[in-house]
């Protein structure tokens, strides 16, 4: 007979694992990857490869020589961070800057806290904000989307502003929203991804497709995205009804910038967001309000990254303050 094993109950385990979740996120990112390659060509491929490989390299080397723990490179979290970082930069980003960004993402935002599960802030967003502040020129010169391999984005750079950037700039010049909207790519193009921006954030449709996959696989729950999108829609909707000349249609806010990427892939990041359903509502709503405030009144045209990072900082407080409903908490009258 074999040696018997003793352990506490339960003696069976569900078939989900951290690895499956992480690779599930990677699968969910595939539609957006394909769209980015379609619109930005080889530039997008290069950015994706450099970022993922650099992130995984830093993860491996730090885990091996500094933390001296068992290898964590296979758990998929570094790959997710790498792809998300790539999604947050323009297609013409120089590789050396990307590598610095990957270093910040993995070494500073993740491994310095102890690795997977211990970082308070979303690593990819920390990387993005670091690059945005350190290399503002490179981070805000957006190549115009071109059909697959039509023009080499690496050398022949035709840059243009993002819709949100254009809006902010022109509003600053005293023009009204309906005038500016004439120059925009239009909702359908914005939804599909034919707009200027970071490689991963342009196509709301592809991101929603990936999000649906994650919802079906139960990798994410609907609470945070609904709270986030709902808040953005309602907040900008109120502003739009007050003054349609100054404030843009809420639908525009939903399909432009990094909102969809942020909502489905950053605000639902398990590590840095609240654990309870109640907490997720608060997190989503808070991030939504902050996003709109930064977009409309802030110095940057886009506020998703800042909003999520700020809410990340509140996550421990939310976890403490908003507990799940305890069984028997209030005696049912029924």
């Amino acid at each position: 007979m074999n040696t018997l094993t003793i352990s506490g109950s339960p003696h069976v385990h569900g078939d989900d694992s951290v690895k499956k979740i992480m690779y599930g996120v990677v699968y969910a990112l595939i539609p957006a990857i394909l769209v980015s390659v379609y619109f930005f060509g080889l530039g997008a491929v290069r950015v994706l490869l450099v970022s993922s490989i650099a992130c995984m390299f830093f993860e491996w080397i730090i885990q091996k020589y500094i933390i001296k723990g068992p290898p964590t490179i296979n758990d998929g979290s570094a790959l997710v961070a790498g792809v998300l970082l790539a999604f947050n930069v323009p297609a013409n980003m120089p590789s050396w800057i990307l590598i610095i960004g990957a270093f910040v993402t993995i070494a500073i935002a993740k491994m310095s806290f102890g690795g997977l599960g211990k970082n308070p802030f979303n690593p990819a967003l920390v990387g993005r904000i670091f690059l945005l502040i350190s290399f503002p020129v490179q981070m805000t010169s957006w190549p115009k989307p071109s059909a697959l391999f039509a023009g080499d984005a690496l050398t022949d750079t035709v840059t243009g502003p993002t819709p949100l950037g254009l809006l902010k700039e022109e509003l600053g010049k005293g023009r009204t929203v309906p005038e500016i909207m004439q120059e925009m790519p239009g909702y359908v193009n914005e939804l599909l991804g034919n707009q200027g921006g970071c490689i991963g954030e342009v196509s709301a449709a592809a991101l929603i497709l990936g999000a649906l996959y994650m919802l079906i696989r139960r990798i994410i729950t609907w609470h945070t995205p609904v709270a986030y999108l709902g808040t953005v829609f309602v907040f900008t909707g109120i502003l739009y009804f007050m003054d349609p000349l100054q404030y843009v249609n809420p639908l525009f806010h939903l399909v432009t910038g990094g909102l969809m990427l942020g909502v489905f892939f950053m605000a639902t990041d398990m590590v840095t967001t609240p654990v309870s359903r109640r907490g997720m509502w608060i997190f989503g709503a808070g991030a939504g309000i902050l996003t709109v405030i930064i977009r409309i009144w802030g110095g940057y045209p886009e506020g998703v990254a800042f909003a999520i990072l700020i809410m990340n900082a509140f996550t421990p407080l939310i976890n403490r303050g908003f507990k799940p409903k305890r069984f028997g908490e209030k005696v049912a009258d029924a």
Partner: protein
Amino acid sequence: MNDVLIFSVISLSAIGIVAAIVLYGVAQKFKVIEDPRIDEVEDALPAANCGGCGFAGCRNFAEALVDSATQHENIDDFFCPVGGTDTMNAVAEILGLSVEEKDPQIAVVRCNGSRQNAPQKIVYDGPATCAFAHNLFAGESGCPYGCLGLGDCVAACDFDAIHMNAETGLPEVNDKCVACGACVKACPRDIIELRPKGKKDRRIFVSCINEEKGGPARKNCKVACIGCGKCVKVCPFDAITLENNLAYIDPEKCKLCRKCVPVCPTDAIHEVNFPPRKPKPEKKEDGEKRGQPAQKKEAAEKQEAGKKNEAGKKNEAGKKNEAGESDKTNNE
């Protein structure tokens, strides 16, 4: 420009003065009058904050000492295991008192159920904490009294004085031990005991706390105390008591004569830091000793069951001593 300068200097100074007055007032109002000796006593303590004295930290201990000194004029009930007698003397000097000498102590692991002596029968798969494993099951060897080997004592030690021996799976105490008692509290099975260090660091103790009868105890572990009582009979100082099938050596009464060590049929009694015994004539048995100790021990057990037979004892004495020596490294 000058106006701005002057204005800011004046306003800042004014704020500073007001704040200083408020702070002074508050400090006066909430002043805590404290015996200055507390600070002095605290300085004399080792500042380990280990809690070995029974207080949360050195400061609390200092307060308790001063309190006791002022109220009862003695501090005999208090002892700092880390600093030992030297520290207590220093404290007593500050407080103008004297203390009686106490023997320094050391933590002793009273289990020798190593992987060899108590083979593993079950695999435990769960968090590496003895506290949980103790609630869950008897132990990988099946001995419900033995060391679980998951190292709660190691985690509890602030002095780097107790470590797991990977080979035996048992914790070992080194001489950094200050007898703070943290490991004693951490062990869910009360295996670790604080015992006097003994003269020249020599001590003798029963390295087992199994209260089962001989048979069941031996089934799980070769070196379990079977409660035969041989040691009790041989002890000239009445230092050994037998209760619930388990022998216990009272360190106060033990004179370190070593007579009990060789008579133990299961090598459950350990002697530490003694010079090797002079080999007795039966040298020829050296070779076979390793091979068949179990048989001999069983024989000894049977003899004991009959509660007679003094004849075998001398033989036993000769045979056992070297085994005892080799085990001592494991348990130190």
